[in-house]
């Protein structure tokens, strides 16, 4: 995402100032360096990719009617507990719109109110599986590790060959009334039937 932004701005500068290529290149190089430096300092690459994936999931999943709350309500991605993303996730969702709603990041410590969160992310290894089942309809649960899916989570990030990928627990999603795109299923590392 950041790279895309950078690329876009680079393109925009190039377009705006075609005759001032050398200073622009310099500026790009500087901004790129500073950007990357700040991101690297903020969160590991793995988290950054997971942040992007979080947003991307919204494109391949259909939330049941009524799960999105009032029309003016925002689309909330809730981080339960520890936030591994730092500012990366904020940057990813900045300005993004899902189902016509503004995407916002909500940090929560405990079980949220029904209908508040559309996605609940947790990186905790010691979460209560009962909690996951209590979240109910219309909430996508995303976590880390192979156990997440086995213990009732819907999408779990796993690392494979240093690549970020994910497993899907389809029955859990079905119970929550979420419809997963077959394309999403196609790129999942594993799908629990």
């Amino acid at each position, binding site marked *: 995402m950041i790279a895309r932004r950078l690329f876009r701005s680079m393109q925009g500068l190039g377009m705006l100032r075609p005759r001032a290529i050398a200073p622009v290149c310099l500026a790009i190089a500087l901004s790129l360096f500073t950007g990357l430096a700040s991101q690297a300092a903020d969160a590991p690459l793995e988290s950054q990719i997971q942040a992007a994936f979080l947003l991307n999931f*919204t*494109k391949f999943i259909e939330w049941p009617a009524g799960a999105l709350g009032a029309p003016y309500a925002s689309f909330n991605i809730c981080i339960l507990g520890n936030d591994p993303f730092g500012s990366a996730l904020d940057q990813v969702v900045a300005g993004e719109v899902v189902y016509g709603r503004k995407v916002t990041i909500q940090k929560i410590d405990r079980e949220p109110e029904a209908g508040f969160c559309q996605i609940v992310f947790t990186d905790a290894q010691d979460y209560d599986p009962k909690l996951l089942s209590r979240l109910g309809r219309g909430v996508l649960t995303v976590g880390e590790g192979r156990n997440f899916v086995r213990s009732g989570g819907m999408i779990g990030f796993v690392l494979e060959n240093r690549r970020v990928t994910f497993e899907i627990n389809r029955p859990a999603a079905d119970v929550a009334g979420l419809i997963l795109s077959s394309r999403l299923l*196609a*790129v999942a590392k594993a799908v629990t039937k």
Partner: protein
Amino acid sequence: MATTVAAMILACVGILTLDSYLYRANLGRDLSALARIVADNSTAALAFGDAKAGAETLSALRARNHIVAACLYQMDGTILARYIRAGERRSCPPEDRRDELRFGGSEATVSYGVFRVDQRYGTLMLLYDLGEIAERRRLYGTMVVGVLLLSGLIAFWLSSSLRAFIADPISQLVKATTSVAETGNYGIRARKISGDELGVLVDRFNEMLTGIQSRDNSLTVALAAREEALRDVEKATERFRFLAESMPQKIFTASPGGDVDYFNQQWLEFTGLSFAQLKNRGWTHILHPEDLDANIESWRQALATGAAFSIQQRFRRADGAWRWHLTRVHAMRDTQGKISMWIGSNTDIHEQIEKEEELRRANDDLQQFAYSASHDLQEPVRNVTVYSELIAKRYRDVLDDDGRRFLGFLTEGGSRLAMLISDLLAYTRAGANDGNDGSDDDATIHSADAVLRYTLSGLAEAIRESRAIVTYDSLPDVSMGEAHLQQVLQNLIGNALKYRTDEAPRIHISATDAGSAWRFSVKDNGIGIDPSYREKIFGVFKRLHRDQKYSGTGIGLAICQRVVERYGGRIWVESAPGEGSTFYFTIPRQTGHAFSAAADLADGGR
């Protein structure tokens, strides 16, 4: 054939161009759809950076063997997955973010953005091998050549079979017309090969030839007939010429307008002139000037009425002598009755005329002599009669019986002689033309009724004596001298009274209209006349009865004949012995003897 091939080639080029265009359009749509499907299927792979899934999706393009390469680009321009056709050494082209379809020389390139819910995840590029187009062109070319060959074969087969159907009958027809034109033989016929329109054409042509042939034949016949007619005319003309030349007469012919156009050889010999000199009224120079007016008048009348005429006129012979000719001119008419020519014959009657003149002169001399002789004899005869009667009266007693008897014979003979002379004188007078016999009134009209009554009163004594019954019808007026008519009537009635039977004579006089003349008749119941004497009785001194029973000099009927003939009439008798006689005579109406004389001359001067 060339135009057909050209048309076909043009059509093929058109089809190829259209096909190429349609193919490209189709291909474009097809590739766009394909790219869209592949891009759709690649969204998750791109979204989650799953190269394996991307490659799997792309590998489905194997089914389209014209796809050379397919590449999925991530947003940072790196290639996520690629598909290269087996056996192809290609790499992915640089990413092109514009959604477009581009046709290159041998390849088409499609670039298509990969989106998921308005979010772009990357780009799909497809490389399409356009070898298919060339393949299609080859296929089409082969098809065109094949179609051309096939259509050529069909055309060849059609034309050769059409030749049998059309060209052969037509060439037959052409052959027939050519030979007809060259030989002029209308008996030639075109052979009919088929029963279609060409067959009908051949039939019509043959019918036409039949028509022409029959017309040609009839024309030949008509020409032959015409030639024969012309030959006939020539023959007739020749015959006419021969006839005209062989006749002793002088023959000429003239046009319907009266212009003389032919003189026969006799004419030329007689006049000593050529045809050129005679024609165009040149002949009038050899006509006697005195006869010219009569000639012109005759021609004028003939041309006006078309009637034939004959005149006597004099022509000058080559030696200058005038010769009398009798000219007869007739109109020859054609079948419509129109005058086609005039034919004239001229007979030399000069000798005849001269002899007649001689005869007439001799007759006149004789008549003159008879008249003067009888006139001169009257005086001495009267002396004899007077003196013999004087002797008989004065010397009766002196003479003896014989003397008295002899004197009686002398007296009787004298009176008889006087009577004869008187009759003779009457006869000569009746025939005289000198007009001294009271013929001043010859031409005037007199009532025959009056003349008859006058005559009967003169005969009253004889009628009374014979106790005859004389009846008569109403008689017409005639143009005849009173004295002459009386002479004739008196003689005829006198004869009827004289030659009677024992019965009382019954005499009836009448006149009937006989057209151009009045026919008078005097019928009696007398002794009648033997048919063999019917002509003789009109001669001078011809008496049938020598005995004393019927007195007379034998001149009466001769006088009658002379008078009647002088007026152009005729006298004859119809009778049988014992049945009475009827004497007839005719007097022409309204005609004087002058005309009769002219008519006599014209008729040959008989």
